[in-house]
């Protein structure tokens, strides 16, 4: 588990004037499931194409098992790739699709049949082995694409947004399926997605990218609880984090924030410049109550959004609205509520550099 399978060292790619990937450094351990997460155009697919060998990097190196693969053509890298559109050979039967890579690798016939049968069993493809791949539905096609790659036992599996063509129910089913297979085969996976939910539910670690630059790498918990900057804080979390303007006052090393409704609220001690900042508050971290309490401020419910299992309240907060998640039927539109902040669950963001300068992990939090 600790062995490094893939290492990207200051990997860079420019197309003419555009820098698609800027000095990306990242390691992937054997058996690990790592997601490259970011909005479209962040360079994640380009990164994948470079690892697979379809694009040549303009800088940096790609190491598999410690050896550079830059000079190795794609067909010799033994890196599996499942495309967004699956690229199943639609004129061939499912069986022939599964045999494709094994034949290309010159695996003997008997061994080939054994491995195909095994993989077909695992991915529930047995009933459709003799069907033409062109007539399959999306879920079947995805399983064929996955089986076709897995049967060749790639040392590294790359998945390029494999769920984006599926509807929500199927996505959910295949997510757990994919996780189960990955665990069972101890397959090292690099998963590219723009869907935070997929990344969080599937990954051991997530690497968040933006405009070709790596923003943060960490476990899903780390990414969610301790975002490194404003972008990561805003990109992860649904409903998205509230960003409230605030004023930081420092006396000695003691830091306190004041917002439109709250404060001054002591945050503990730290090296933070005084002045205007942004305060990130997750919707479920807002404390709401019907009665006034210490440090609470009165606010009005403007909109109630029903998400089924929970409701999202949009509350007055100074001259803006903040979102708060609550149990269903907690409040109705027009209700007056008292809101308070938990100093341990705040993210203080420098409005200039947009870095998170302090959060609940701040040293000496009361």
């Amino acid at each position, binding site marked *: 588990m600790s062995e490094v399978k893939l290492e990207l060292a200051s990997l860079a790619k420019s197309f003419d004037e555009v820098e698609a990937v800027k000095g990306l450094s990242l390691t992937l351990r054997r058996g690990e499931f790592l997601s490259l997460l970011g909005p479209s155009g962040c360079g994640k697919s380009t990164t994948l194409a470079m690892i697979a060998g379809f694009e040549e990097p303009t800088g940096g190196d790609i190491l598999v098992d410690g050896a550079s693969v830059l000079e190795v053509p794609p*067909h010799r*890298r033994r890196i*599996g790739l499942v*495309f967004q559109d699956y690229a199943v050979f639609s004129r061939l039967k499912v069986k022939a699709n599964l045999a494709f890579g094994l034949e290309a*690798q010159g695996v003997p016939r008997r061994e080939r049949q054994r491995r195909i049968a095994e993989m077909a069993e695992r991915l529930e493809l047995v009933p459709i082995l003799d069907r033409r791949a062109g007539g399959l539905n999306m879920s079947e096609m995805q399983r064929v694409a996955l089986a076709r*790659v897995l049967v060749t036992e790639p040392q590294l599996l790359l998945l390029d947004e494999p769920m984006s063509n599926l509807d929500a129910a199927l996505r959910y089913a295949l997510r757990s399926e994919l996780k189960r297979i990955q665990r069972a085969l101890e397959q090292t996976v690099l998963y590219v997605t723009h869907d935070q939910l997929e990344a969080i539910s599937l990954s051991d670690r997530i690497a968040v990218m933006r405009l070709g630059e790596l923003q943060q790498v960490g476990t899903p918990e780390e990414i969610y609880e301790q975002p490194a900057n404003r972008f990561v804080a805003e990109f992860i979390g649904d409903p998205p984090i509230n960003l409230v303007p605030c004023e930081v006052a420092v006396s000695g090393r003691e830091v306190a924030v004041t917002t439109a409704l709250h404060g001054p609220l002591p945050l503990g001690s730290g090296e933070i410049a005084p002045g205007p900042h942004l305060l990130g508050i997750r919707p479920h971290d807002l404390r709401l109550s019907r009665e006034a309490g210490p440090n609470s401020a009165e606010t009005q419910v403007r909109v109630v959004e029903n998400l089924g299992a929970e409701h999202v309240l949009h509350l007055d907060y100074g001259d803006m609205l903040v979102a708060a998640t609550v149990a269903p039927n907690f409040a109705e539109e027009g209700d007056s509520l008292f809101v308070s902040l938990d100093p341990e669950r705040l993210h203080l963001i420098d409005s200039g550099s947009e870095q998170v300068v302090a959060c609940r992990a701040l040293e000496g939090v009361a």
Partner: protein
Amino acid sequence: MAKRKHSWTTALKRGAVIVAALISFLPIFWLFSTSLKPYDEWAEWPPVWITERPTLQNYRIVFFPEEAREVAAEQEGSLDYKVSGSAWKAFQDSAIISTCATILSVVFGTLAAYSIVRFRTGGENFPFQFLTVRMMPPIAVVVPMVALFSILRLSDTYVGMILAYTAFTLPFSIWMIRSFLEEVPAELEGAAMVHGLSQFRAFLTVTLPLVKGGILATALFIFILNWSEFLFALVLTSGNVITVTLQVANYVSASSGKLYGVQAAMGTISTLPVIFFGYIIQKHLVRGLTFGAVKR
């Protein structure tokens, strides 16, 4: 009201198609009709549309000139049928040259188109530059071509004609095959490559079968161009190599001028493969364009 307007435009469109079809068909009909006329009706005025005395003599002159002369000798006031060249050789030469040039053109065209599509060879405007070669009238290069061919000793040879035809149809090949290759998603080849096939093998096993129909259509189109080419055949040969189009022009006699009926007979026969291939093409063109590979 709307329905009536619709039927009006439909009728108009159909009418236009029928008129266009008639205009296209008229010369073919005239050619065929003339090929069956006896010599005294060839240039009759008012024109004889359908002869009342059909004869196969014109075809006999094309294929069996000796026999035709014997038949003619028995008739009164017959024509002098001494014609040069042989239709058999013309068909043979045309078949050799057209086939070889077509194969070369399509092979080079496929490779060039592939490199343009996949590796963006030559940049964005490269394919258009190819087409502009075809916008120049061929007559503009005839003189330098004749000079070049005589220096290279390619005049009046099969190799020379094949090279000339290949060069002149290559832009069409590249342009047409490119459009078929663009339909094939790069991902399909990518999938083949991550499964262990080199790029060239991926091209051969995955992409080529998908554009087969399109390449065949291109080949037939190129073949028709080659088969019906006249100008280069005229200036780059001098009797050793003779194409069908040249042979048509050979049916001239010293005493009676152009043998229209014989030319029409030769023309009719040489049109048959063109019509036949044209018929096949339309089927494959449609198929080639609708070969969706990736289900989106």
